[in-house]
C-alpha cells in the first residue's frame, strides 16, 4: 500500500474506533458524561486525562521546538509536567470538596457575586481561545502534509473537522473514547522513537538511547549532536538556553501555574468520586503524560541529528576526518529524499540555492563557521518549520509507511481531543454560566444547547482565522494561553482556598489586573488580539522582551504576581468577606462530607 493510501486507512480506522466506542459506551450508560471517571478505574481515568491534556502542542510541536532550543527546551518539559504537582496538592482536592462543576461556578459562590463569575468567564475565554489557535496551527500542519495541500488549506480543512467533531460527535467526556485516543497517540509517539533509537544507538528505550553510544563511535548521542551543531555554527545543544537563565526560570514557572489554572484540566478533577481520588488521579494522569514527555527530548535530539545527516554526509563520517564543508558532502538538491519534496508542497520546508551550486547547505549563517566562509557558502539555504519535525521525523529516518501513517493518526487524536475539550469548556461557560446562570435565567434547555453550539462555531472561526497567521509555533501559542490562565485564574483559585479573608473586590481586581497586564505585554509583541501589524512595542521603546529580557510567552508568571499583589491591596481597602463565606472555606479544607457534584447541566 502506498503512503497516501496507508495514511487514509490508519486515520480512518482510528476514527472508526473512537466512534464505535462512543456508540457502545452511550448504549451502556447515559450518565457517563458528568460522572466521567465515576465508575472507571483510576488508571483508565489517568489515561483519559492524558489524552485531554496532550494536544497538538505536546505531540506535533514540542519536540521540534526542543530540537531547535536544545537544553532550553526543558522549560516546556518541566513546565507542562511540574504543574501537576501544584494541581494535586493545592487545587484538585479542595475544588472536589467544594462540589461545583465549573470554574465560574466556584468563583460565583466563593466570591459571592455574579461579577466574579463573569470576570472568570472572560479569563477562561481568553486562555481557551488562545489555546485553540495553537491547536489550529498544529492541525493545519498535519492536514497540509497528509493531504498534500498548502498550509492555509490545511488550517481550513482542520476547522471543518474540529467543528464536526466537537458539535456532532460529542465524544468528549466519554472516558473510554479518550482512553482509545490516548493509546493511539502514545503508540504513535513512542513507536517511531523506539525505531529511531534502535537505529542510532541500539538501545530500544529512547529515554536511555539519548545518552547511549552513537553508532559505535565511542561518543554518546548527545555528544555527537553537540559536535555536529557546533561545527555548523549553531549553539551547543546541551547547554544553549532560551534567552537568559531568568527567562527560562520565569517561563517554566508560568507554564506550571498555568497548568493548574486551565479550566478544561481542572474540570476533570471536579468529577472524581472522592477527595482522595482527586489527589491520586493527578498522579496517574502525570504517569501517562510523562511517558510522552520523557520520550520527547530523545525525539528532539535524534530528529535534529537525522536532519543534519540527511543534508550533510559528514555527519556520519568518522569524527577525525569528517569535513562538513567539502562540496561533495552537501547533498544535491535534485537528489534530495522524497520526504523533503512532500513537505515542500506545504510551504513549511523551503530551499533556496543562494550560491548556485545545486547543493543544499544547512548551517547557522548568523554565526558562520570559518569553514563555511572559506567554502564559499552564501547563507543558509534550507528553512525547516519547527512544527513539522515530529511529523517528518519517521520519514527522515526512512521508517515503514505504516509508522508514518500512525504518526498522522496520533497527531490528529492529540489535536482533536484537546480542541474538543476546550470547546466544551467555552460553550458551557457561555451558555450555562453566563446566559442561563445570569443574563437569561428563563432560557430553555434547547436554547442553552443552541447557544453552546453557536459559541463553539464562533470560537472555531476566530481561532482558525488567527491560526492562519499564528502568533508563534503551535507550542509557543499554547504557552501564551497558559500565561493568560496563570495570570488570572490560578491566583484567584489559590486565594479562594488558602485565604479565608479574600473578598470579591480583591479577587475581581486581581484577576482583571493580572490578565490585563499580561495581555498588554503579549499584544505589544504579537499584535492586538494577535492581528499582525498592530504590535505596539514602540510605546515601550521598541525593544522586544523589554521587561528584564522576559519573553511575552513567559509573562504569565509576572502577571500572577501582579494579580496577588493587587488582590491583597484591594482587599485591605474594602469591606471584609462575609462570615458564612469564611466558614465555607474552612469546610472545604477537610475531606469528610464531600457530596455529589452539583451544578451540572443538560
Amino acid at each position, binding site marked *: 500500500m502506498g503512503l497516501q493510501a496507508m495514511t487514509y486507512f490508519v486515520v480512518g480506522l482510528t476514527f472508526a474506533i473512537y466512534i464505535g466506542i462512543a456508540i457502545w459506551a452511550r448504549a451502556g450508560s447515559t450518565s457517563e458524561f458528568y460522572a466521567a471517571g465515576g465508575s472507571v478505574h483510576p488508571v483508565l481515568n489517568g489515561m483519559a486525562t492524558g489524552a485531554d491534556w496532550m494536544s497538538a502542542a505536546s505531540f506535533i510541536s514540542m519536540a521540534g521546538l*526542543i530540537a531547535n532550543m536544545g*537544553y532550553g*527546551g*526543558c522549560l516546556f*518539559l*518541566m513546565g507542562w*509536567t*511540574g504543574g*501537576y*504537582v501544584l494541581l*494535586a*496538592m*493545592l487545587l484538585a*482536592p479542595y475544588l472536589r470538596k467544594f462540589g461545583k462543576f465549573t470554574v465560574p461556578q466556584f468563583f460565583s459562590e466563593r466570591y459571592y457575586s455574579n461579577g466574579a463569575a463573569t470576570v472568570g468567564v472572560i479569563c477562561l475565554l481568553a486562555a481557551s481561545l488562545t489555546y485553540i489557535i495553537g491547536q489550529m496551527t498544529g492541525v493545519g500542519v498535519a492536514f497540509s502534509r497528509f493531504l498534500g495541500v498548502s498550509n492555509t488549506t490545511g488550517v481550513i480543512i482542520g476547522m471543518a473537522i474540529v467543528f464536526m467533531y466537537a458539535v456532532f460527535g460529542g465524544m468528549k467526556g466519554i472516558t473510554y473514547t479518550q482512553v482509545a485516543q490516548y493509546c493511539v497517540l502514545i503508540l504513535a509517539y513512542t513507536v517511531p522513537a523506539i525505531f529511531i533509537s534502535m537505529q542510532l544507538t541500539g538501545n530500544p528505550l529512547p*529515554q*536511555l538511547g*539519548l*545518552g*547511549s*553510544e552513537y553508532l559505535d563511535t565511542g561518543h*554518546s*548521542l*548527545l*555528544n555527537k549532536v553537540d559536535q555536529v551543531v557546533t561545527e555548523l555554527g549553531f549553539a551547543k545543544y*546541551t*547547554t544553549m538556553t532560551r534567552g537568559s*537563565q531568568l527567562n*527560562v*526560570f520565569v517561563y*517554566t*514557572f508560568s507554564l506550571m501555574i498555568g497548568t493548574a489554572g486551565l479550566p478544561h484540566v481542572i474540570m476533570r478533577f471536579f468529577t472524581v468520586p*472522592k*477527595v*482522595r481520588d482527586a*489527589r*491520586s488521579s*493527578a*498522579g496517574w494522569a*502525570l*504517569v501517562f503524560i*510523562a511517558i510522552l*514527555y*520523557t520520550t520527547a*527530548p530523545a525525539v528532539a535530539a535524534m530528529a535534529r541529528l537525522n536532519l543534519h545527516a540527511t543534508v550533510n554526509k559528514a555527519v556520519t563520517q568518522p569524527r577525525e576526518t569528517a569535513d562538513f564543508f567539502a562540496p561533495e558532502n552537501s547533498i544535491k538538491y535534485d537528489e534530495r529524499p522524497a520526504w523533503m519534496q512532500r513537505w515542500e508542497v506545504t510551504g513549511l520546508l523551503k530551499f533556496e540555492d543562494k550560491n548556485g551550486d545545486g547543493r543544499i547547505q544547512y548551517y547557522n549563517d548568523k554565526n558562520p563557521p570559518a569553514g563555511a566562509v572559506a567554502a564559499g557558502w552564501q547563507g543558509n539555504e534550507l528553512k525547516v518549520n519547527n512544527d513539522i519535525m515530529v511529523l517528518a521525523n519517521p520519514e527522515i529516518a526512512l521508517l515503514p509507511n505504516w509508522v508514518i501513517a500512525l504518526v498522522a493518526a496520533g497527531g490528529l487524536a492529540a489535536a482533536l481531543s484537546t480542541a474538543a475539550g476546550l470547546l466544551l469548556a467555552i460553550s458551557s461557560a457561555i451558555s450555562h454560566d453566563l446566559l442561563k446562570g445570569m443574563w437569561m435565567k428563563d432560557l430553555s434547555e434547547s436554547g442553552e444547547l443552541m447557544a453552546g453550539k453557536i459559541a463553539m462555531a464562533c470560537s472555531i472561526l476566530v481561532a482558525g482565522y488567527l491560526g492562519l497567521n499564528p502568533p508563534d509555533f503551535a507550542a509557543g501559542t499554547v504557552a501564551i494561553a497558559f500565561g493568560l490562565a496563570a495570570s488570572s485564574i490560578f491566583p484567584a483559585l489559590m486565594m479562594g482556598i488558602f485565604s479565608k479573608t479574600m473578598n470579591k473586590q480583591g479577587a475581581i481586581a486581581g484577576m482583571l489586573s493580572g490578565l490585563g497586564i499580561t495581555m498588554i505585554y503579549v499584544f505589544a509583541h504579537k499584535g492586538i488580539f494577535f492581528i499582525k501589524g498592530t504590535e505596539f512595542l514602540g510605546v515601550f521603546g521598541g525593544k522586544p522582551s523589554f521587561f528584564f529580557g522576559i519573553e511575552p510567552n513567559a509573562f504569565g508568571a509576572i502577571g500572577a504576581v501582579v494579580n496577588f499583589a493587587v488582590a491583597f491591596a484591594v482587599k485591605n481597602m474594602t469591606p471584609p468577606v462575609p462570615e458564612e463565606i469564611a466558614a465555607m472555606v*474552612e469546610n472545604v*479544607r*477537610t*475531606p*469528610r462530607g*464531600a457530596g455529589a457534584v452539583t451544578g451540572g447541566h443538560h
Partner: protein
Amino acid sequence: MDNQGQAYWKATLGLIRNVLIVWFVVSYGLGIIFAPALNSISLGGYPLGFWFAQQGSMYIFVALIFIYAKLMGNIDKKFDVHED
C-alpha cells in the same frame, strides 16, 4: 476553628511545604540554577544538569504526587476527617 481543625490544617500546610521544597530544588535548582555546574558530571551519557532538566525532574514529579497522596491520606486518618 477548633484546635483539632487548626492542627489538621497546620499538618496539611507542613506537608505541602515539604513537597514544594523538593519540587523546587529538583526542577528550578538542579535543572536550571545549578545545571551549568552539574553538567561536568556524567550520568549514563547525559550531562547531569541536562538530565535533571529534560528527564529526572519529571520522574521526581510523578513520585512526589503519589508520596503526597499517601501522606495526606495518613494525616486525614490521624485527625479523623477522612471519607467513608
